[in-house]
């Protein structure tokens, strides 16, 4: 077995298995939602699990709007939930029309 990976979510220390995605690490830690929606403030976690739906967006080491289901968890990683009042992202060029 490899050494556990230590990381934090909103300052709370958690640990994961090396090689896991951030989403998997959070679910294993009992966290099922880490974002609230812009309009209704509803909780969201992982839905599609493969990078298609963008429900699982999280701020990782200062980078906003990262898909937690695709990002590998890393030692010392600082994760911050994206709540409706904190959500700021420069990655807004995806919308069509």
């Amino acid at each position, binding site marked *: 077995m490899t050494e556990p990976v230590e990381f934090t979510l909103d300052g709370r220390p958690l640990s994961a298995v090396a090689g896991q995605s951030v989403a998997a690490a959070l*679910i294993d830690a009992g966290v099922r939602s880490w974002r609230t929606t812009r309009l209704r403030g509803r909780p969201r976690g992982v*839905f599609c699990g*493969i990078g*298609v739906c963008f429900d699982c967006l999280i701020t990782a080491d200062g980078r906003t709007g990262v898909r937690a289901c695709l990002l590998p968890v890393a030692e010392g990683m600082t994760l911050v939930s994206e709540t409706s009042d904190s959500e700021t992202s420069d990655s*807004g060029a*995806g919308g*069509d029309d």
Partner: protein
Amino acid sequence: MTDRFDLAVVGAGPAGLAAAVTAAEQGLRVGLVDAAARPGGQYWRHPAESVSQRDGHGTRTFRDLRRRLRALRDRGVLTYLPDRQVWFVERDEDGHVLRFTGTTTAAGGVLRSRALVLCPGGYDRQLPVPGWDLPGVMAAGGVQALLKGNRTLAGRRAVIAGTGPFLLPVATALADAGVEVVAVCEANHVTGWARNPLGAMAVPTKAVEALGYAAALLRHRVPYRMRTAVTAIHGTEEVEAVTLSAVDAEGRVITDRGRVEVDLVALGWGFTPSLELVTAVGADTRKDVDGSLVACVDEWQRASAPGVYVAGEATGVGGAELAVAEGELAGLTAASDLGGRRPARRVRELPVRGLRVGGLRVGRLRAAIRRRRAFATAMHLAHPVPAAWPDWLTPETTVCRCEEVTAGEVCRARDDLGAVDVRTVKLLARPGMGWCQGRICGYATAVLAAAGSGDQPSADDLRSLAHRSICAPVSLAELADSHPDSPPPDHQP
């Protein structure tokens, strides 16, 4: 800036791996771009350390392709670019220019090639249902991805619902891992995949596979309930329970089968391919037998756009074995069309690993593709999306998860504001305008929009939804960098 790859392959799942490896072995210089960190796609997903000890279905094929991929990289004829998503593709005088962005941490860049094989794969098709936006409700493929790729259990007590054979491996994998699976709810009545005997008999291994899953469900005492659907999901901060309903052949609710407490709901209504790159290069598309938009290809995997080949789910959802055969054929065709390094005239005459077996190889691939396509068609016909699913919605049900557009708002745009097609519905009510660009709600929105005139969505409706001028979300900094005056780093062969 003139140096370019002979062939760019987008996607390193079963089709893309087979295409890239085959083409490189034929002497082409290949660039392989993939969104994931590791090769294998959704089907051959595996944890970082190794492929799971238990040899899964088709694992031998994957190991063989991965071994060849490494060998070709070592020889310097194949460049593998993982963790990168293509967000823009355009033609230039010598072929194609692909602009990609890092999926997670990789830097963006540009890849130029003479020809292009698109193997974008697909994802679970979804239908909205009241409460499906609660945490703990997931795509069946996502539940499987957490388990296969991370050994993570998405819940302790699960219900698997939707339609199609994929519900079975998800249910058995969860049950094997210790999750209590309270039911597999199959909306259709399936008398075995042999309903269309021609299709099912064409791929006998599939019948054996189905028996294996059935045995596993029995062993774990997981009930397989046909003509049953999850018609509502309950909870406040996360899923707490579901309502199961007995439905008729069209999906209309006959009787309420009661409320079942669960902490995980896995939903899947078959798969739908990612078509944005196919439409971006201007290749012809059509509506497949399962209602999904797919690429038109000829018997050599050529798309209608010059220098473009398509293989795998994007030509019609049909599974990994079909994808591998199509990918291999696409690789051979591309090598033949481009002439490779050798003066090849036709695929039939290409030397393969030093032997003149090209004709045999192509014949074998063609036969495999025909057989597996027939099976896929039979499977789609046995597992249609039940037409009456919109009856399950309430006006408050979220349809578009990104922009939080409700069923009521979509129907108002259609009925009160006079939107006659899905494009207008999209403009008025904004479903499909968020982060995922309609990948999750597109099908449902198209069905709801078309229902105003009592129709199913047309191929044109699906096309207007599949078109995305920017194929993956990209930062404004990268957009600025893509200006001709400030070229991003080139990836050269």
